[in-house]
């Protein structure tokens, strides 16, 4: 009978962070990954914010294969025939330590797995976990590739659907309102061309969010990140909004339309699409979170629902890395106490509770509901575009004064609705 200290299901950021930490403490760790290599099944938009996790893995970041540090931030409000962009840039975003980096997961995860292996973790890829082994109701191992593998603890880091957590009875299949789907193209472009086109120097990078017409007013938005020699261009849209179909639009069409927008077409011109990927994203926040541990089992990363959309940022990877780290700390504590039951593993919840992970999820627990407002994605983008048009328009005849130009959009009922929306948004 093969027995390990810990079996980790899934070589994503949560699983690898846990493996790296546990192996570093000398535990026998087995990571099972269903893809051909770590990262083969993993998708991000995306960017990684380093500040929250820098100190959890102090030796990791110097050599990490991140793409570009983000020195140029921007948000574009899109309506049908125009868009308004706000850029945020300047020297403060060029100061080390850099806050965030663009990232490609197939590259990064493979590298992170190597670091975990160097610490002594054992990684087996091309292996799907088919079931949990339970002894007296307590998770005691997994069935994978026809083998029974035993461990004191299983850490389920098997991603957004976490079939392992369902088998453990810790969660039910997810509901569409608690999830979004992201899909993107990787568009290769010469490194120098990217720098010239986006006004970047060296390894500087740009991140831009898009909202409004890009999702046809559905809950979500578009994104563009510059990588070293490619662009990640994609869309995230709430599954419930998408499936209700008002207006009915097939997801892939949104991305095609996005690419055809003149504002975007010039940015990707001459580039070659080399990959198309998609992934569901947990966005239900604190309210949608499942139980995080049971007898002999812990959940981390997307499997635990640790991803969050607060409008301006959609974050998941820091929570994955941190929850993997704290899951590892919980296992170490449980090992010391020789108690791998739910009671022994409950320290996981405490550790998360004292960290930025739970603080963030509690602080932003009203965000999903506040953002569930179609006016934010339809009405305001359209109105802002109209205002800009009228402000900038110079007619053949006399031009209207600026104040009345703006005021025509802000009648009493509009202001009243804005106040109501603002009160909701203020809960974020």
């Amino acid at each position: 009978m093969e027995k390990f200290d810990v079996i980790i299901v899934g070589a994503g950021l949560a699983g690898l962070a846990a493996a790296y930490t546990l192996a570093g403490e000398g535990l026998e760790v087995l990571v099972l990954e269903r893809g051909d290599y770590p990262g083969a099944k993993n998708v991000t938009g995306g960017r990684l914010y380093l500040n929250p996790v820098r100190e959890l893995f102090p030796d990791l970041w110097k050599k990490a294969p991140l793409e570009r540090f983000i020195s140029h931030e921007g948000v574009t409000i899109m309506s049908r025939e125009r868009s308004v962009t706000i850029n945020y840039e300047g020297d403060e975003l060029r100061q080390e330590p850099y806050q965030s980096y663009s990232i490609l997961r197939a590259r990064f995860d493979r590298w992170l797995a190597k670091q975990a292996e160097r610490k002594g973790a054992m990684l087996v890829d091309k292996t799907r976990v088919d079931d949990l082994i339970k002894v007296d109701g307590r998770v005691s191992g997994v069935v994978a590739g026809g083998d029974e593998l035993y461990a004191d603890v299983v850490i389920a880091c098997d991603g957004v659907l976490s079939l392992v957590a369902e088998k453990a009875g810790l969660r039910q299949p997810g509901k569409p309102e608690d999830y979004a789907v992201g899909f993107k193209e990787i568009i290769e472009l010469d490194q120098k061309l990217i720098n010239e086109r986006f006004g970047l120097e060296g390894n500087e990078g740009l991140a831009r969010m898009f909202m409004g017409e890009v999702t046809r007013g559905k809950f979500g938005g578009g994104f563009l990140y510059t990588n070293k020699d490619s662009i990640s261009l994609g869309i995230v849209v709430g599954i419930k909004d998408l499936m209700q179909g008002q207006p009915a639009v097939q997801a892939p069409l949104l991305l095609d339309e996005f690419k055809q927008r003149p504002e975007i077409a010039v940015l990707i011109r001459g580039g070659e699409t080399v990959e198309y990927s998609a992934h569901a994203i947990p966005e239900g926040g604190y309210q949608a979170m499942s139980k995080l541990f049971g007898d002999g089992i812990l959940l981390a990363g997307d499997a635990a629902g640790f991803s969050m959309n607060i409008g301006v940022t959609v974050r998941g990877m820091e929570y994955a890395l941190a929850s993997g780290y704290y899951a590892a700390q919980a296992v170490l504590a449980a090992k010391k106490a020789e108690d791998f039951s739910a009671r022994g593993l409950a320290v996981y919840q405490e550790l998360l509770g004292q960290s930025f992970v739970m603080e963030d999820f509690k602080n932003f627990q009203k965000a999903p509901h506040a953002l569930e407002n179609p006016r934010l994605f339809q009405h305001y983008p359209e109105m802002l575009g109209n205002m800009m048009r009228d402000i900038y328009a110079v007619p053949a005849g006399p031009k209207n004064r600026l104040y009345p130009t703006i005021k025509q959009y802000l009648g009493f009922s509009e202001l009243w609705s804005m106040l109501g929306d603002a009160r909701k948004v203020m809960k974020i």
Partner: protein
Amino acid sequence: MSEILGLKAKLGLDVFKADKEAHIKIRPGMEKDARLKRAVLVCPAGLYSENSEGAVEFTIDGCLECGTCRLACGTEVLEWNYPGGGSGVQFRFG
């Protein structure tokens, strides 16, 4: 080209390894279920389509394993698992 590729051409850029059997199946008798029709809109790979008789047809080739159809339609309608180890899509960038 960054021009508009057909969805098939776009999926053709990805690396797929064939599985022994389809990892997602429409449960028998559920082809015309209203919940299944959601998949036609939400699938980023466009693998679901509705035929003239109002039944939803599905092909597994090109599945990105994103999980969206399972979330949108539910497990009463779809029998859903990940492909076997070492099969299915293998992202090179992610």
